[in-house]
């Protein structure tokens, strides 16, 4: 991965850093997975576990920050090494946010569990979460293999996530208009969907950081246009029964 340094402890330190990033990534993936499972199966206990697990990620981020700063101070890194270290700081921050978003979804489980929503909504959320998690998994796999030429998929997935989110947004609005009693759970679900969509964005950020670590260049800047929910307006009439 890196070229060998004369001081082998330096290599060890850099390796330790990427190992910690991978461990954080694994935790973040697991948290999001379990948060969505808790939401779909209305499982408050699993949700509590996810909320507790967030501490691990906070701890991980602090540790990586400390280690990275010590390495910079001790070794005066240059070029790839410096990018590797700065990249680790950035990726750990993104992963910590992913964990927060997972925790936020888990916190809403109780509020949503009260009134059971139509199954199709949960299926939609699950599909959205699968897209976001696939994105995160593939990005972290690229971090392991350093094969940045494969990173183009991130953009495609981002488009899919946005399309799916827009569709869910519209559906949730429809349910709220059908029956005001749906408003509370649907609003929570809307936030859940938003949080999951944000996880995809963080995965994209991580992909950009990895691209920068490996190539030293910024990723070409043709960001997709994002979701279209800002333009969704449903007519304020009762839908036909």
């Amino acid at each position, binding site marked *: 991965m890196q070229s060998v340094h004369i001081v082998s402890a330096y290599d060890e330190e850099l*390796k330790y850093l*990427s190992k910690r990033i*991978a*461990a954080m990534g694994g935790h973040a993936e697991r948290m999001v*997975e379990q948060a969505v499972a808790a939401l779909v199966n209305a499982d408050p206990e699993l949700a509590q576990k996810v909320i507790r697990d967030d501490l691990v990620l906070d701890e991980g981020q602090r540790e990586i920050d400390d280690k990275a700063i010590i390495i910079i101070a001790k070794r005066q890194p240059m070029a790839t090494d410096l990018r590797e270290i700065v990249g680790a700081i950035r990726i750990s921050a993104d992963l910590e946010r992913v964990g927060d978003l997972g925790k936020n979804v888990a916190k809403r489980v109780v509020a949503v569990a009260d009134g059971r929503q139509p199954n199709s909504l949960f299926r939609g959320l699950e599909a959205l979460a699968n897209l976001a998690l696939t994105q995160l998994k593939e990005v972290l796999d690229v971090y392991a*293999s350093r094969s940045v030429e494969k990173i183009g998929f991130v953009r495609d997935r981002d488009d899919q996530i946005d399309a*799916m989110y827009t*569709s869910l947004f519209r559906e949730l609005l429809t349910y709220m208009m059908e029956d005001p009693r749906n408003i509370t759970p649907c609003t929570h679900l809307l936030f859940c969907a938003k949080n999951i969509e944000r996880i995809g964005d963080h995965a994209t950020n991580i992909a950009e950081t990895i691209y920068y670590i490996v190539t030293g260049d910024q990723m070409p800047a043709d960001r997709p246009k994002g979701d279209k929910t800002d333009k969704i307006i449903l007519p304020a009439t009762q839908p036909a029964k």
Partner: protein
Amino acid sequence: MADIGTERKGRAQAVAMRLWNSRWLLAAGFVAVLMVYGFAGMSGYVVLLAGVVLVAAAMLPAGVARQSTENAAAIEASGLQRLSGEYLAAAVADPLIIFDRSAAIVHANAAAFAAFGGIAPGMSLSLKFRAPEMQALLDSILAGNVASDSVDYIEKLPVERAYRVSASSVGHATDLYVLVFKDQSEARRIDRMRADFIANASHELRTPLASIAGFIETLRGPARNDPAAREQFLQIMQNQTSRMARLIDDLLSLSRLEMKPYLKPGTEVDLRQAIDSVIDSLGPLAKENGVVIERDFAEGPLDVPGDRDELFQVFENLLENACKYGQSGGRVVVSIMRSDSDPEPGIDVTIRDFGSGIPEEHIPRITERFYRVDVENSRTQKGTGLGLSIVKHILTRHNARLSIRSEVGKGAAFTVHLPAR
């Protein structure tokens, strides 16, 4: 009778073999018994002498045989010494990864490459297997706390797979470790399938069942003496029961597909012939809906790796949808093209209708189970809400992609991209 005869002969042979194999034990036992008798009686020396002679005689023919087995053992041992870890790993059917003290991959067998894409020698295992339990397993093995350990590891994406992973150190002080993945997806999937089937089926079957129950109540009550209403209600009930039957068929076929997400490799499908037969089989439906099916096939061979029956089901579902929901367009175009420009060369099959099209917000979701763009329309067309879900499942197994383009009022185009390998 003959069977029983041969079986009996076989058994007799097996007994004889067993006797022959344990001849030394038997001989020794015999000698021991003789010796006991000998010591008990007076002519001990004579019996002992006879025993020694017996053993010596028994040894004679066996001496050669024993030597040859010893030779074989020697050859085997040196062969085992020379056997490279690579061959051994290749002979293991389960994914197997050999790694060193720093958790870097030293060697992975073909099964591991197939199961986990994107691994290469030198890559760090702890970067690839990030799940907390896998991290803990690697840490405890590398720290030398335990010589071997195993955990359950579940990969959710892209296809759910469950493994029993065992890690252990190799030999003495080789600084090498081995990770073996035992696939347990099947058992897990059966459990899941049962739960899913019950959840989906109960939800979707309740609607027709409720309507049948309602009509039965009406028939026994207010409509008891109304033959016209009875005829009408019985017709509705018949429609509902056939809907339930279709639903169960689709659910079963979906569950079967979910049971085996991997495809058996090695079979080729001639798309031209497969799609021709799909078009023939849907001829009556197209005529009934007033739709003309047009063909636009590329020249030359159009073979792709895949399962013929499954691909038939894909195109049947897609074409059936096009005929039903694109009815207003009056025609459906089926085209087969080679697409070499794609990063993954293969064959594109496009089924295009000119009907009312699919609103943009529904496109990302129409492959979900029971997702319907228009519930009323789907019910009148005898849809179960599972067709595209089945299509998507089959295509995932074929490593194929489904892309959907549609414009409201202009129709929809479903393109299946099948990689040529």
